[in-house]
């Protein structure tokens, strides 16, 4: 018999007042009475269930053994002993009711498998559709949400939304190995200038070019027309055909670049830290009052927060954790010339890298890094070629 089962049913520890209880024990066994924890050190003591204790009484009379209850253990006795503690039982009932109510809502949404899309982005997407911590489980439609995610994000190849307990798990698989299928958009269109500048490179695949290399164009100017006209010998228009214009056109632009690296900077040194534990239930926030520490001007706060869960899938709207408040002092330090130059160079290369990422070709770089009073100045111009093609409506 398991310990929990014994506790649940209740049992008694009985002393058998006799010198030789063997006959009594044999009779008990023959009548199917279970005994456990039988010891004979000072006197014979055993444990038995409540029903078996009553069944034992006639045998005890028969064998002239006196039964003495030493202890009453288990749930029925515990309830009987505490029957007058009404607020305790009411509190327990309230707790169970609250737990039951809490189990009707989703309190935690977790995301798995996302690399490209951040949790915040997915959370906002779900929030727009009403899926947030605190919503009713009944109102959550996993299949519909799966469809919506697949519809909104083309490069998410597989989605699974499941609810276990009070936790919603969104598992996604992103498409990491792209097959770049050439999607031919056959809608007729013309090409217009996306930026102003001088055209430096132009390759027209389909359409009638309206400008040539060396021309200065304004933003929005027609570059390649999507209307192809077939003319006769007498320059009369024989026919007109609408096509999807296609071309690679680069315009030259001169970008000004300025970056200032100051020599002096403030460094924060942590002097002391203190922990303030807190608990948050729903929107109610309770923090240990800050009696003993003086608040200083320069403070950094880091909050560690965890959500309470009874089981892996049973999360509750209870958050706990601590605020680590660090008092800091600020010291003014100076960078060396080397450090300033390195920082300026790093910033400039980062700037160029960002330009290249958006398809810009860097032609000439006239940026110089000079040390001046109080810092380092990176200044100059960068000549770049921008891809300047933008699709638009057909015009004559």
């Amino acid at each position, binding site marked *: 018999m398991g310990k929990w089962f014994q506790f649940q049913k209740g049992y008694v520890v009985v002393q058998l007042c006799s010198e030789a209880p*063997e006959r009594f*024990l*044999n009779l008990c*066994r023959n009548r*199917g*009475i279970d*005994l456990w*924890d*039988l010891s004979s*050190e000072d006197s014979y003591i055993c444990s038995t269930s409540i029903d078996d204790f009553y069944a034992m009484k006639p045998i005890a009379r028969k064998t002239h053994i006196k039964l003495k209850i030493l202890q009453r253990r288990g749930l029925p006795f515990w309830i009987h002993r505490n029957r007058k503690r009404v607020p305790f039982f009411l509190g327990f009932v309230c707790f169970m009711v609250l737990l039951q109510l809490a189990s009707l809502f989703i309190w935690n949404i977790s995301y798995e498998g996302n690399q490209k899309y951040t949790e915040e982005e997915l959370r906002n997407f779900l929030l727009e559709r009403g899926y947030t911590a605190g919503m009713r489980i009944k109102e959550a439609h996993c299949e519909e949400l799966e469809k919506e995610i697949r519809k909104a994000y083309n490069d998410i190849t597989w989605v699974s939304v499941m609810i276990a307990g009070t936790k919603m798990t969104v598992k996604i698989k992103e498409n990491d190995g792209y097959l770049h299928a050439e999607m031919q958009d056959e809608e007729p269109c013309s090409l217009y200038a996306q930026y102003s500048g001088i055209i430096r490179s132009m390759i027209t695949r389909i359409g009638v070019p309206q400008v040539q290399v060396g021309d200065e164009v304004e933003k929005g100017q027609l570059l390649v027309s999507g209307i192809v006209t077939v003319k006769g010998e007498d320059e009369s228009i024989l026919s007109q055909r609408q096509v999807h214009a296609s071309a690679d056109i680069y315009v030259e632009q001169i970008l000004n670049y300025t970056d200032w690296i100051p020599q002096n900077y403030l460094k924060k040194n942590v002097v002391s830290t203190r922990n303030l534990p807190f608990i948050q239930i729903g929107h109610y926030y309770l923090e240990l009052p800050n009696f003993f520490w003086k608040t200083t001007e320069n403070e950094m706060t880091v909050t560690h927060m965890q959500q309470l869960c009874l089981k892996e899938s049973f999360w509750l709207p209870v958050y706990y954790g601590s605020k680590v408040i660090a008092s800091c002092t600020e010291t003014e330090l100076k960078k060396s010339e080397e450090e300033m130059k390195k920082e300026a160079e790093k910033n400039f290369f980062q700037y160029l890298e960002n330009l290249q990422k958006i398809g810009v070709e860097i032609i000439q770089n006239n940026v110089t890094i000079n040390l001046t009073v109080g810092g380092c100045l990176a200044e100059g111009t960068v000549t770049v070629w921008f891809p300047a093609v933008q699709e638009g409506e057909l015009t004559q």
Partner: protein
Amino acid sequence: MAERFSHFAQSLAEQFNLPKDVVCGSILISMEGRNHVWIRNFRSLIEYSDCCIRLAGKHEKIRVSGKRLHICTYNYEELEIQGSIEGVWFE
């Protein structure tokens, strides 16, 4: 007569691959180290003290001796003894 019947039951069990404890009524003893012993198929408890437990089976009696012997479970099915067991003897 009883001995003859015991032999007959034993040969019958061997012949038909029947469990001997059921056919012959032999006592089953399982031990775990020298602190735990389980005894099944016994008839009655003859003597119980913290240093000796004697049991009667169908054909034989056994004695478990040791120190601080404590019966953990005592029901119709089995008897579980815990303690520092020195030996199990057939009488």
